């Protein structure tokens, strides 16, 4: 079969009829401008996504003005970018392939197609039909992603809105161009032409995807399989762990602070991932609030101790089975109202405690009590006993700690690697670190034993490694 040649007009007398050149010019300019604008927004979004491939935290653009509004803190753009909907193939590629890359490819293709028709100045009906069909793709994606953004992520991203508006612009331009195109309908438009143009579009997406896959930095396989460090012991002798909704798979521990925004975001990412069902997840509470946590000097998350106490109260302080639902209800509520709760606690922690008791009457009589305070201290001392870093969130799969840099965009990739057969084997070969050094207690052998008094227990046998102290 002869490959189609685009230089050949669809109708034999195409070149002899100057149809539609003026009427379609304006709408085609709109389509080109929309494509370029959409391309710029998509490029900014891709750039923001790709800068995170260095596993660091970066400022990202969040403005309707292309290139403006770069900020480091929390924003709708960050929430959307970190959501599982921002990229595909996350379990195979670290971070996945960003959907904005495909948007960039699509807008580049549309700019090329619309630009070509504008330049040539005499589009055929088939060409404007194809352009209209091609611009329907970003329109369709706008509807889908607009819905996901509002309904699933709960945030809107200004850069994304820029892409949506550009999509509308190119579609409207293509629609008007097609409507105003007075060229006669081809009697039998070549299927080959459509296939060629479609192939070009697919080619744009494929070439950029391949470029991305080849050029992006690869993940360190060792840390992906085994993580960054291990627990001394994943045991829970003081029953401080609270079960979290998950599956019945590999035991995993999430060290979290109920008022920590990063923990909330991490929990959402984990919940959205199908991999959560392959974990049997438990939480260790580690509030970054000096009210109860001596390891922090600043109140990073005021009120976190009170909310943690409430979760422990709701879960039950005994060493028996925990009330998973009651504890998780408080966690969900705390995640949902984090900012307000932190503000309230910063002003008056007592007010937060009252709010907790009113919202969850089950914790009355327990919250603020000596038993729950002691339990929360045990939870913090679990962290000490395992010598883990003072930060939240942290995820331990089995006893292996997922690297911090893998806990956002790389979550699915790393978790799938850790849970793979290869990961299980690699993790099983890891040796736990030594117990954090205990205080060097001196020998008591040098101290003369008085004969009169009776000790409550036998003295310790002398340890030859212990420091000798002068009597």
């Amino acid at each position, binding site marked *: 079969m002869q490959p189609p040649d685009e230089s050949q007009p669809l109708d034999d007398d195409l070149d002899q009829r100057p149809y539609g050149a003026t009427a379609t010019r304006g709408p085609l300019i709109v389509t080109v401008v929309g494509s370029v604008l959409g391309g710029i927004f998509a490029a900014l979004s891709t750039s923001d996504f790709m800068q995170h491939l260095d596993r*660091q935290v970066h400022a990202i653009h969040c403005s309707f003005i292309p290139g403006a509004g770069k900020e480091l803190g929390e924003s709708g753009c960050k929430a959307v970018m970190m959501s599982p909907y921002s990229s595909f193939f996350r379990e195979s590629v670290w971070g996945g392939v960003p959907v904005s890359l495909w948007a960039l490819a699509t807008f580049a293709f549309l700019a090329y197609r619309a630009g*070509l028709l504008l330049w040539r100045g005499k589009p055929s009906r088939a060409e404007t039909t194809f352009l209209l069909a091609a611009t329907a793709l970003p329109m369709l994606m706008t509807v889908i992603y607009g819905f996901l953004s509002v309904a699933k992520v709960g945030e809107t991203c200004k850069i994304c809105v820029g892409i949506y508006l550009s999509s509308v612009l190119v579609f409207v331009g293509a629609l008007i161009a097609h409507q105003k195109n007075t060229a006669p309908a081809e009697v039998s438009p070549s299927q080959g032409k459509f296939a060629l143009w479609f192939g070009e579009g697919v080619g744009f997406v494929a070439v950029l995807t391949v470029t991305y896959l080849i*050029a992006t930095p690869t993940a360190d396989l060792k840390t992906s399989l085994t993580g960054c460090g291990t627990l001394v012991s994943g045991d829970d002798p003081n029953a401080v762990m609270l079960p979290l909704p998950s599956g019945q798979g590999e035991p995993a521990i999430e060290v979290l602070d109920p008022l920590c925004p990063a923990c909330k975001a991490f929990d959402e990412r984990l919940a959205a991932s199908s991999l959560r069902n392959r974990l049997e997840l438990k939480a260790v509470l580690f509030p970054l609030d000096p009210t109860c946590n001596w390891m922090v000097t600043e109140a990073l998350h005021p009120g976190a101790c009170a909310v943690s106490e409430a979760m422990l109260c709701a879960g039950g302080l005994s060493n028996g089975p925990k009330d998973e639902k009651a504890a998780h209800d408080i966690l969900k509520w705390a995640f949902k109202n984090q900012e307000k709760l932190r503000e309230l606690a910063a002003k008056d922690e007592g007010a937060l405690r009252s709010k907790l008791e009113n919202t969850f009457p089950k914790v009355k009589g327990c919250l603020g009590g000596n038993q729950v305070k*002691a339990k929360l201290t045990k939870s913090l001392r679990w962290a000490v006993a395992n010598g883990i870093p003072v930060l939240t969130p942290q995820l331990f799969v089995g006893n292996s700690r997922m690297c911090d840099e893998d806990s956002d965009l790389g979550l699915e990739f790393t978790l799938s690697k850790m849970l793979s057969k290869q990961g299980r084997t690699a993790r099983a070969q890891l040796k736990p670190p030594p117990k954090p050094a*205990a205080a060097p207690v001196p020998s008591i052998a040098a101290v003369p034993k008085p004969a009169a008094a009776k000790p*409550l*227990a036998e003295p*310790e046998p002398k340890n030859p490694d212990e420091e000798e*102290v002068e009597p």
Partner: protein
Amino acid sequence: MNEQTQRWGLLAVAIVIPIILVSSWASAAGRRLKESSSAAKDVAIASVSDDSYCTPQLKAIIRRVAGACGLIEGGGGGRGCQPMEAQKVAALSGDDFNALFKPLTRRAHIIQFDSSKTELDPEAATTIEKAWSDQRGASFFFVVSRASTDGAADFNEALSRDRAKGVLTHLQGKFKDEDLKNQVGLLWLGEQYAQLGDEFCTWNRSRTTACTAMEINRSAFVAWIDCAI
């Protein structure tokens, strides 16, 4: 310019620009990743507390006392020391021994007893529970019991010991905590060593009644020690 040239020219521009952008972003990310991998990561590790009052001298003394009193993790701690042993290990005068605990003004509680009694009243029980639940990052819970100089020395020594044991028994009953045996150290001082002066009446006490030098020594001094020794 013919149509083929137009087409290929536009196509090349449209595809090459994104390719260059994506390649350069990926390359920059890769370069930064390499640099950050070689940089040392400075993250604090969870640890027990080591308060500013824990001077090297204080730590050395606490280490001696703690070692001699069996406060060894994993050992049979909480067995207590005898008056003479504590004095020898600390190698301090009574006043110097008491001075050790002065930085603990806000952490310590003084549990008061009736004359010749070892029973805890409800306020004493509540105060002990409050003190215990405020462990935070501390490693050792000291119970230093005393008796006033009323009565015979032998009787007071036994009284002091029973007061210390009373505190431990209450904690065991209330909290059923396995760590108790590794964290609670009992020192019963009798009447002949380290009697408290009436300046300790201003500390957190289990009783709000009037306080004299005699009454403040019918007591058990309880406190978590925030020193990583």
